C-alpha cells in the first residue's frame, strides 16, 4: 500500500534547561511533587530563541541527514500552537530560511498535541498530487510563552522544543485515523489580539479524555491494520504526563516496554513531542527497517489521532 516514509528526522531545543528545583524557585511546588505526579525532571525553555528558530534548526538537521535536493520539497507543514507570528506562517518562513524552492504548499496547522499526526496524513495526501518528491513536517512549540506561572498545577507540565521529519511516499504500511471533538473548557488558550493569552487546563478532565481515547485509538488502528499488539515494535504516545502513558500501558501486560517515554527530559512539548521521541529512537538505532510503530496524539480541541506505519 502507499505509505509515507520518514527519510530523516532532526530536533532542536533551547539552550536553557530548567530543572524542577530551578522552576520551584519561583513556582510554589517541589521537585518531588512534580516528579512523582508527572514523571518530569526538567524542561527546556526559550530565552533568546523563538519557536521559528527552533523549527528552522530542527528542519536543518533533518534535511542535512536526508541529503535531498531542497528544490524537491513540495510541502512544508508546521504543526504548532505557539507560532512566532500569526502571519506569515512559520512554514513560509522556513521556505525562506531553508532555501527551498518557491513552488510548494507551505502552511501551519493547529491540532495541538495531535498536530504531528494530523500533519503526517496531510503530507501524505498532498505529496500524492505534488510534482515534487518530498515533504517537510515540523512540530515546534514555545509553550513557555503562554504559561501562567501562578497556576502551579499546569505551568510545571510544559516545555519548549521542535522536531522535524523529511517525508516521501513509498510502499509500506500506513494506517491513519483522526478525530475532533470541540471543547473550549478543558484545555484552552485565547488567540491573537487578546491581552494576555494563557494556557488553562482542567487536569482531571484532560486525564479522563486522554486515557479513554488513547486506548480506543490504539485498538482502532490495530483493527484497521488487522494486527495485534504483539506485531508492533513501539507505541509512541504524545508525552503529556507519564501517568497517562502508564495508565494505558497497564492494559497491555507484558508489552509495557513498547510504550516509549522521554517526558522526563522535555516535559510536554505538544506538537513536538512525538517527533522528539522518533528522532531519539532513530538516533539510538532503535528504529530499524520494517519495524512497525503506532503513534497516538491527543490534545486540545479535543483532537486525537493514531497512526500505524512501517519504518
Amino acid at each position: 500500500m502507499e505509505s509515507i516514509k520518514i527519510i530523516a528526522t532532526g530536533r532542536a531545543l533551547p539552550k536553557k534547561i530548567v530543572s524542577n528545583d530551578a522552576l520551584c524557585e519561583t513556582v510554589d511546588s517541589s521537585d518531588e511533587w512534580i516528579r512523582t505526579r508527572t514523571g518530569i525532571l526538567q524542561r527546556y525553555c526559550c530565552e533568546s530563541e523563538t519557536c521559528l528558530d527552533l523549527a528552522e534548526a530542527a528542519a536543518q538537521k533533518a534535511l542535512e541527514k536526508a541529503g535531498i535536493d531542497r528544490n524537491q520539497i513540495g510541502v512544508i507543514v508546521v504543526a504548532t500552537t505557539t507560532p512566532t507570528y500569526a502571519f506569515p506562517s512559520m512554514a513560509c518562513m522556513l521556505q525562506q530560511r531553508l532555501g527551498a524552492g518557491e513552488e510548494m504548499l507551505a502552511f501551519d496547522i493547529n491540532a495541538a498535541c495531535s498536530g504531528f499526526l494530523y500533519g503526517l496524513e496531510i503530507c501524505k495526501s498532498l505529496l500524492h498530487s505534488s510534482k515534487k518528491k518530498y515533504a517537510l513536517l515540523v512540530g515546534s512549540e514555545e509553550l513557555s510563552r503562554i504559561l501562567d506561572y501562578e497556576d502551579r498545577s499546569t505551568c510545571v507540565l510544559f516545555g519548549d522544543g521542535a522536531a522535524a521529519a523529511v517525508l516521501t511516499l513509498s510502499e509500506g504500511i500506513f494506517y491513519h485515523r483522526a478525530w475532533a471533538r470541540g471543547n473550549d473548557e478543558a484545555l484552552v488558550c485565547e488567540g491573537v489580539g487578546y491581552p494576555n493569552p494563557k494556557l488553562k487546563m482542567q487536569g482531571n478532565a484532560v486525564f479522563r479524555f486522554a486515557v479513554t481515547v488513547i486506548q480506543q485509538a490504539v485498538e482502532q488502528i490495530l483493527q484497521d491494520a488487522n494486527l495485534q499488539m504483539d506485531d508492533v515494535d513501539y507505541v509512541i504516545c504524545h508525552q503529556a504526563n507519564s501517568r497517562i502513558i502508564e495508565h494505558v500501558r497497564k492494559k497491555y501486560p507484558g508489552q509495557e516496554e513498547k510504550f516509549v517515554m522521554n517526558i522526563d527530559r522535555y516535559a510536554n512539548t505538544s506538537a513536538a513531542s512525538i517527533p522528539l521521541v522518533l528522532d531519539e529512537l532513530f538516533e539510538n538505532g532503535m528504529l530499524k527497517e520494517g519495524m512497525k510503530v503506532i503513534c497516538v496524539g491527543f490534545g486540545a480541541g479535543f483532537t486525537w489521532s493514531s497512526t500505524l506505519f512501517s519504518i
Partner: protein
Amino acid sequence: MTFDKVKDVIVETINCAEEDVVMDADLKEGLHMDSLDAMEVSMALEEAFNLTIDEESLMEFKTVKDIVDYIDAHMA
C-alpha cells in the same frame, strides 16, 4: 458486597496494601491518593459497577466509606 469490590478496585488501581483499605481510610492522608489517582480509581469503579461518577461527587469523597455509600445509593 460493595466494600469488597471497591477495595479490590482501589488496591489494583493504586497498588496499595490491602489492609490499608478500610471503610474509614482517608483517601488523601491514609491512602496517599492525589487527584489523578482519584480519577483513575473513579474510572475503574465506573467500569466495575457500570455506573457514572460525576466529577463533583468525586471531589467530595474523603474516605472509602464515601465511595461505598455513593455506589450503594446509585446502584439501587
